[in-house]
């Protein structure tokens, strides 16, 4: 690169670096602050002494959140939900996106079907009708109530079908000449070539399932069936001091709402933080190069 040595480029480079570092700090510092609060004693947190380093280090808040058997049980439900949900979501997304990515002369009703799906993004029954459907299907209080109502993420389907359309048609033609059917073309050609898109969509799905709490709340009739996020919603310290009984008050002595909330934020975000690095490598672009000779 020639222009690397010009003064202008150097100045640009410095400004660029400074801006980027500033932006990253803006993103990272609040996270560190929350982390520090979650490890601090409640009196230090309550007095606002905590900045980026824990004051009077303690595990108490984490103990309070994790010590309950409900936490593990809820974690289990969530893990199960993510595994089931992601498997179902991805399978359906792939097999729906493939035919819809074909052109209208290959698949005549394509446009009708696409609208059929898109319609559900624009209009849906609303909370109560959905609830009644789930209830009458007998899904209430089962894991399926969390997985099935959102089994087809239409938005992801559209993402993926658009990605499929960017793949060179010559590939498909070549494979067809070699005697490959649709199944082979989809699973042996399209899917491997679409890894970056699939990784993105998978991450969305994982995070979506991991973070959703409202459906757990309305479809589950027992706190022990709650997924983690719904459960964490309920682990707040009562603020109505007038109603407290003696046990609650003992708790208030050592734990404050702030440190507990901070600990919860971390426990809830941790797994997603752990999954991300493994998917990162698929986000690197430039896969569909070199397989076609123009």
């Amino acid at each position, binding site marked *: 690169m020639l222009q690397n040595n010009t003064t202008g480029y150097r100045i640009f480079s410095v400004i660029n670096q400074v801006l980027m570092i500033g932006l990253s700090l803006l993103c990272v510092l609040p996270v560190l602050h929350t982390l520090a609060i979650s490890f601090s*004693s*409640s*009196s*230090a947190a*309550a*007095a*606002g*002494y905590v900045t980026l380093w824990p004051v009077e280090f303690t595990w108490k808040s984490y103990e309070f959140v994790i010590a309950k058997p409900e936490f593990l049980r809820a974690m*289990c*439900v969530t*893990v*199960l939900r993510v*595994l*089931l949900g992601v*498997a179902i979501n991805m399978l359906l997304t792939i097999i729906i996106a493939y035919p819809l990515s074909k052109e209208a002369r290959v698949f005549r009703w394509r446009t009708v079907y696409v609208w059929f799906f898109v319609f559900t993004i624009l209009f849906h029954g609303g*909370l*109560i009708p959905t*609830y*009644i459907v789930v*209830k*009458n299907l*007998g899904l*209430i*209080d*089962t894991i399926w109530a969390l997985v099935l109502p959102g089994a087809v993420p239409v938005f992801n389907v559209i993402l993926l079908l658009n990605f499929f359309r960017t793949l060179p048609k010559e590939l498909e033609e070549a494979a067809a000449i070699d005697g490959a059917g649709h199944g082979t073309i989809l699973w042996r050609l399209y899917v491997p070539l679409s890894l970056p898109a699939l990784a993105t969509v998978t991450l969305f799905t994982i995070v979506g399932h991991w973070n959703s709490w409202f459906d757990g*709340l*309305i479809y589950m*009739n*027992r*706190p*022990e*069936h709650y997924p983690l996020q719904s459960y964490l*919603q*309920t*682990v*707040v310290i*009562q603020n109505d*001091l*007038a*109603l*407290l*009984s*003696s*046990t*609650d*008050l003992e*708790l*208030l*002595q050592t734990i*404050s*709402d*702030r440190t507990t909330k901070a600990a919860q934020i971390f426990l809830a975000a941790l797994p997603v933080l752990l999954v991300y690095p493994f998917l990162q490598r698929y986000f690197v672009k430039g896969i569909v190069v070199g397989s076609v000779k123009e």
Partner: protein
Amino acid sequence: MRSFRRHLLAAIMVFVLTAITACSGSSGGGNASNGPNATSQEGSEEAAQAKGPFGKYDKPITVKTVKRVENNTKFKQGESIENNIWTRTFENELGIKLSFDWIVETAQFEQKMNVSISSGSLPDIFPVSASQLQQLVEGNKLADLTKVFDEYASDMAKTLVNQDGGIGMKSATFKGKLMAIPAPGPLTDQSHLVWVRTDWLAKLNLPEPKSLADLLKISEAFTKNDPDGNRKDDTVGLIADKTVFDTLRGFFNINHAYPGIWIKDQSGQLVSGIIQPEVKTALAHLQKMYKDGQIDREFGVKDLTKTFETIASGKAGMVIGSMAYPLAVLQRTKDNDPNAEWKPFPLPSSDDKPVKIELNPTVSLFYAANENTKHPEALIKLLNMFIEKMWGATADPGTFHKSEGVEVFKYPPVTISKVKKNLEGYRALKNAFETKDISKLDVEQKTNYDSIVKFKDGDPSQWGYYMVFGEGGSQSVIDAYDQNNMFIFNEFIGAATPTMVQKGATLNKLVLETFTKIIMGDEPVDQFDTFVEQWKKLGGDSITREVNESMASR
């Protein structure tokens, strides 16, 4: 590469399988979903009979209900909401089997109940909020409890539902029919009082606050005379937060203004406290204090938690608010500075007229019965039994209140609390310390007694209990309020009127913005008069009309 992927796939499959088997260990009894509004007693040929408040059904009945639990509810090994000392008692002594449609934490209860109401799957008996009650009554979904209450309620139950002076019963009565049983919430504990850093008072040689003039003087000295002795101008005299009223309601009361409630004017009509001229006086004082630096410059953007930082870090000299503060925020001041001393004082008056403390006795929780239920009286019986086992002649607190350290009294689907529980607790403790006789204390009072004894023996972590229930604690201030009848009650009881629902949020925003601006000096105090006009125009007048109509029609 291919084989690697195979292995990965296999590994994932194994993982999924183990997860499924590990997690499917205990799923509670599945609920067969019935059609809309199907109650559990349909189809039984002859209704079971049970005479009197404590009569047992001649053949056991099953009652479907739901339960709101507090998130820190604990259970003994093998017990649950569906199986514990209370459920067994109801079954053995009353012949009532309970089945729970759902169980949900208190915070999410209202939402969950709304879903049940909208989807038409109501159990036999269930708790409801005030607005849900109104909605269900209008939709004719509830059983009329007038007769069954008269016939079945025990004397003690009749006393307890009326312990708030009948306000709860009034708000559960529609067109002369009792549609639900009220569960009155805490009343006297809503009182505001003044917490003052007495170590600072001593340091600056100031008198205790006996009048508004004293209070203003103390606030000024705490701001300007460096009470914490660090040679920095970093202390505030009085705490305020962005909600204005959470921390300043008491300050308005000092000036004979009652912003949160409806009061009677000379002609006997109900008027909103927020537009009375006394509010203007209070605002004028606050504006002056803010200008002087006695109130946090940034109070308008700080929520309660953020505001409490000022208290916990020892930068605040006075806070007006709840009797329970020592148990949380004030204790934190002591954690950070062992020499800090907080003491509660009754709200002083701004003139020679006695001060009145505003209380809002509106009941927010009711127990209702489904119109289709065969046994609405079961609701009353459950309530009778709860009250009897808690406080009646056959009460056994060691079994039913707190057993082996577990608070089992939180389990039953229908519960009621004593609205002056903490005040009565204080009086009982005072008596116990004077007579040296602790045999009359109930479980909770005994716990508090032990805490105070521990504190007196030199355990600083129990200071909070001592400051609430001990001599000179916040309950002693409330005791004085109560003895001298210093309370003024909200005259309007009942759910929000139509215009309140429609315009309430807008009006609240108007109040908040205007008051914050006036206190911060961005607007002159006379802006209050303009505000009153606006408030009336934007729906205040029609709300006032509705409130008066609704109270007249009761």
